[in-house]
Structures are given as C-alpha cells and as structure tokens.
C-alpha cells in the first residue's frame, strides 16, 4: 500500500477553526471522487475530532491541533487529528456512546459518530501528554462514463 498524496496543517484550538478544519480535509478528499454522503461523513468525523480537542484536550489551556491526511493507492483516506492537551484517562470508557465528562449541551456522541461514519477509528492517548485520533475512510471507486 503506497501513499500517493499527503497534507498536514496545524491551527489554534479555537472553535472558529472547526469549520476551516473540516472544509480543508473535505477539499483534500475531493480528489478521490467521493459521493456527497462520503464527503459529509468525513466532514462530520473531522468536526467531532477537532471539537474534542477544543472542548476536552485544551479545556484548561490553549494549544494547537495538528491534522495529517494521506491518500493511498487503495483509494483510502487516512486522517489523523492530534493534540498535546490533557489526554484521556480511560479510552475504553470515552469510546462508550453517551459517555461525557462535561454534560450540559454535549451529547457524548463524538467517538460514536467517528466510528459509525468512518471505516476505522484508532485512539491513542497518554494522560497529560495528548491524544491522537486516526480515522480511515475507504472511498468506493465509481466507474461511470469516462471514469
């Protein structure tokens, strides 16, 4: 499996950048000729991952969010969203739907959405050091006229 394209970006963990982050990944993914539904799945999952960084990882301090995207020759998009924030104490519990530490207006669905909308989700976290969420979306090739 060979990587055929890659981009990375980093930005301040501010909520105003949530829109920018998902739009950037969606624009990069567009070269795989995804359907509208696939693009929306990717945008939604990226939005969840970036929101987690802002709401949870950097709840106590401000920091940066790092996104790296690759495309391989199997038509797969891999998105990694990394922060250097507080980390997750118990990743298994964080992955349970409806589990949330902040309550209020947060539904506790972030990881459930990432799991459901993408084909693979991996979460690596070290308490006090940060979290990396890696997601994979397989884009089905479409063979139409001229395709």
């Amino acid at each position: 499996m060979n990587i055929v394209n890659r981009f990375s970006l980093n930005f301040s963990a501010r909520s105003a950048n949530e829109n920018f982050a998902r739009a950037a990944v969606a624009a990069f993914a567009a070269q795989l000729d995804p359907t509208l539904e696939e693009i929306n799945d990717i945008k939604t999952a990226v939005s969840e991952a970036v929101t987690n960084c802002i709401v949870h990882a950097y709840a106590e301090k401000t920091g940066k969010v790092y996104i790296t995207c690759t495309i391989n020759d199997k038509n797969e998009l891999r998105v990694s969203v990394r922060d250097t924030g507080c980390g997750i104490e118990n990743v298994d519990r964080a992955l349970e739907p409806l589990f949330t530490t902040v309550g209020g207006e947060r539904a506790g669905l972030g990881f459930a959405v990432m799991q459901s909308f993408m084909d693979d989700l991996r979460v690596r976290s070290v308490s006090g050091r940060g979290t990396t969420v890696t997601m994979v979306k397989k884009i089905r090739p479409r063979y139409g006229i001229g395709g």
Partner: protein
Amino acid sequence: MSVELKMTGEVLTAYLSGELDHHNAREMREAVDEAIELNHPSMLVLDFGQIGFMDSSGIGFIMGRYRNLSRYGATIHISDAPPAILKMMKLAGVEKLATLPKTVKESKK
C-alpha cells in the same frame, strides 16, 4: 448561521440556517431559549431545511431544548431535515426526544 423565529398560536417554529457545530450552537441556543422563555410554546418546531452541515453539537442542541421544554410538558418536532442530518439523528436516537419527519422532505408547517 442564523435563526428565524415565528410564533403561531402555541407553536414556536425556529428556522435554522448555516452550519450547526460546536462554534455556532451557542448563538442558536441563546436565541431559541430566549423565545421559549418569552412565549412558553406547547410545541417547538425545529426546521433544518437550511442547515448545510450538522455534527453531534446539533444533537446536544436538541437534547438541551428537550430538557427545557419537557419540564412543563411541551414537545419538539423536527422538520425538513436533509438526509445527512436525519442519518445523525437516527444514530443518536433523537426519536426518543422529538417527532421526526416521516418523509425526508416533509413540507414546512
């Protein structure tokens, strides 16, 4: 991102537009909550016809309004939600909190 509010009889309709994410949810929440407090509707209709994108912040938004309204027995109806938004709502089990449109493009009330 904007909210247009209309009170018809006892029904408050909120026409939401733009992208409903964590960044925009606060403004929508404040506008809708102010209208709820002022009018005490028996039903809140959330119209998603002009929402181009929604993540799970939209589910948090519905849950929060459900908590406010169910205190005095009022209900929520979801109207005109595009397919991508219905997909998120079904994953989240929103039908336990609100009535969902029977068809994908239910006409506006």
